[in-house]
């Protein structure tokens, strides 16, 4: 029985994502072939060893996707579906950039102020969905979808009304030079082209804090308990309503950090450099990583690799880089299917084992 459990664990952690990736790549190849492109060129481009500069992009992208994944994972652990990460980090990124651009404080203090504001705005926006859920029974799935659209429109309006004119579009005031964070070399990378964003380290911090809070604190235990079996949690005195609001606040707060590494590491203002869509990808990354920090990190790395490596596809192979979105979507779908199949297979194996033990016991009793 122990070996079955171990096998199941291995299957879930290692084999399931690999199967999912293999199926996703097969589906992607099929689509590439159907569109009349060459699969070998596709794989050649995707598997080209990245240059230093590309590695820097992959690491930066991984950090931001990890933050997005963590934001989703906090809510998932509590059985909450925070589809609103997209809106939360859009509004938070705008607010953070706005505050940083105002330069109310000198240097590092300015960065801290912007981070605090971004987290607060993200948390507040997420809290709306949490409060609507606990007071009015509104499903967070629908309310966060609505809040996404409202946030994105709101930022567009704010930027159009109060932003600086810049070229064809609008932007927030660029952050002062003293608040810019030059890239890190980490002793490996050449920093002349930017280097790894200094605030990518936020990903590490958030990952560690998440692991500690979830696994080692009373709050984390309550969170997991409520996510696992709400009725039992209530019976043991967990205040579920409060937990829901806190989980949404935390999820939104982390969502507020998603774009901060880029803001201080190169973008300098909110406008054209803003990378949208990370919120939705974050959901996928969290599912892929089973809401555990290490898993989410691998998921983020995989998705970052796919999206960064796909960029030259158009130039080198005349294939639209959007093909990797198919890979990403299929990976998520297949991985949840495989997890479910493995879970059922495990449950069935356990039942069989239990039955044979029981049969053995009754047989022994009769003898």
């Amino acid at each position, binding site marked *: 029985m122990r070996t079955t459990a171990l096998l199941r664990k291995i299957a879930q952690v290692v084999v399931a994502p690999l199967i999912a990736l293999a199926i996703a790549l097969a589906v992607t190849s099929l689509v590439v072939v159907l569109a009349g492109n060459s699969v070998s060129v596709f794989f050649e481009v995707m598997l080209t060893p990245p240059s230093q500069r590309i590695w820097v992009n992959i690491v930066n992208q991984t950090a931001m996707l990890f933050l997005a994944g963590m934001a989703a994972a906090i809510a998932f652990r509590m059985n909450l579906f925070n589809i609103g990460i997209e809106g939360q980090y859009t509004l938070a990124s705008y607010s953070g950039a706005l505050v940083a651009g105002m330069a109310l404080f000198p240097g590092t203090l300015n960065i801290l102020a912007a981070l605090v504001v971004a987290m607060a705005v993200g948390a507040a926006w997420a809290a709306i969905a949490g409060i609507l859920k606990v007071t*009015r029974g509104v499903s967070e799935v629908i309310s966060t*979808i609505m809040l996404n659209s*409202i946030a994105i429109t709101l930022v567009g309006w704010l930027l159009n009304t109060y932003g600086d004119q810049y070229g064809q579009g609008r932007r927030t005031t660029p952050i002062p030079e003293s608040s810019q964070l030059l890239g890190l070399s980490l002793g490996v990378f050449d920093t002349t082209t930017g280097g790894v964003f200094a605030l990518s380290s936020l990903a590490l911090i958030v990952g560690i804090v998440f692991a500690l809070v979830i696994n080692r604190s009373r709050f984390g235990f309550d969170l997991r308990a409520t996510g696992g079996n709400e009725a039992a949690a209530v019976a043991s005195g967990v205040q579920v309503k409060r937990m829901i609001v806190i989980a949404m606040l935390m999820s939104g707060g982390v969502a507020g950090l998603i774009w901060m590494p880029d803001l201080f590491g190169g973008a300098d203002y909110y406008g054209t450099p803003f990378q949208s869509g990370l919120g*939705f990808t974050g959901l996928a990354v969290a599912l892929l990583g089973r809401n555990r920090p290490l898993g989410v990190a691998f998921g983020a790395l995989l998705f970052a690799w796919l999206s960064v490596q796909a960029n030259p596809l158009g130039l080198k192979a005349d294939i639209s880089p*959007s093909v990797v979105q198919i890979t990403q979507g299929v990976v998520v*779908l297949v991985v949840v*299917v495989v997890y479910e199949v493995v879970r059922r297979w495990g449950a069935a194996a356990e039942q069989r084992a239990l039955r044979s033990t029981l049969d053995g016991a009754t047989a022994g009793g009769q003898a």
Partner: protein
Amino acid sequence: MSKGSRLLLLGVSVLVSIAAVRVLTGAHEIDSPGSLRAALVATCPILLAALGGLWSERAGVVNIGLEGQMLFGTWGAAFFTYYYDPYIGLLGAILCGVFGGLIHAVATVTFGVDHIVSGVALNLIALGATTFLAEAFFADLDSEAGKGGAQQLTGLAKPASITIPGISDAANDIADKHWFVISDVASVVAVLTTRISVVTILVFILLVVTALVLWRTRFGLRLRSCGENPQAAESVGVAVMRHKYIAVLISGGLAGLGGGYLALVSSPGFHTNQTNGRGYIGLAAMIFGNWRPGGILVGSGMFGYTDSLRLRDPGTIHALLLLVAFWLMVFAVWRIVVATRTANAARTDRATIVALAVGSVGFFAWWALTDSVPRDFTSMTPYVATLFVLAFASQRLRMPAADGQVYRKGSAG
């Protein structure tokens, strides 16, 4: 008062209030034939998505993937219209939508994946797939049938539209005279008799057919029983899995047709990410409409009208503030009447009444103190309205009891 006459009364009072606001503010574009036509065209894709949602959720499967199924539909419509004709194009849109529905059905019904996870993944896949396929298939197209680009395919043939000659001209004339109530009615008649697309007519037929099939046939009863209590349904011999599959496939087909409508009727052709969240709006319209065909029509109409307002002048939008203020006050008074009659004015009810009244005064002040409304605020309206309806009416909404629950064959005790 019977349900029918109550609805009639409500309809007439809406019409009169619109006419009054129009005459009072001089914002005749509120319900000019042009405005109503734009609103109707914006309503149809949302209505189709919402109907798709209805089929699926009545069978107990939440379909967040409507957005993706619509996207598949836009691509299918463009592809098949270019190579054949717009009617094959519509069929293509439906087929591509059904394909999206099939993915969702396999994941949720057969493998028991969380419905929302599957839907989100499907939307990711659809956005990537349609963008990629558009670039691969449409980029080099350039002929009489259409002109392609990396992200679009325009100049496609459109499905036929119908004009009823005599009535159309007369109605348009009367609508232009801006008479109280009479011109408003004429406006509606003008839209229904002037260049109305056959696909629009089909959409309303599908609405009626859906209502009849789901509520008036044996098949519909069985299908709905899968959404209410699948264990009980299976124990009396309903093939639950099969009904769920059929429902999700129909759902995908309707959403796909919605995508086709966007590419062939609403706009001059296909472009990538054409749905732009309309699948989600359709889902909201369905919840807004309390999982019922009539409610869905009202919800979609409201969303369609606000969606079409982006094209209107700011003065018209400004005049609508007055209309909103008026109706919020009406609802507040109505709730007070209901609360006093039932004599147990619950605390939540009082909160609702206060909120409605404050909202009404707020909108009135907004109307009185400003001259125009920023366009961005208009595009926010459907989302904000949905949030408010959910916040204040969620107790009145009743979704199918087993909606969103994973069901496994043979789990009937």
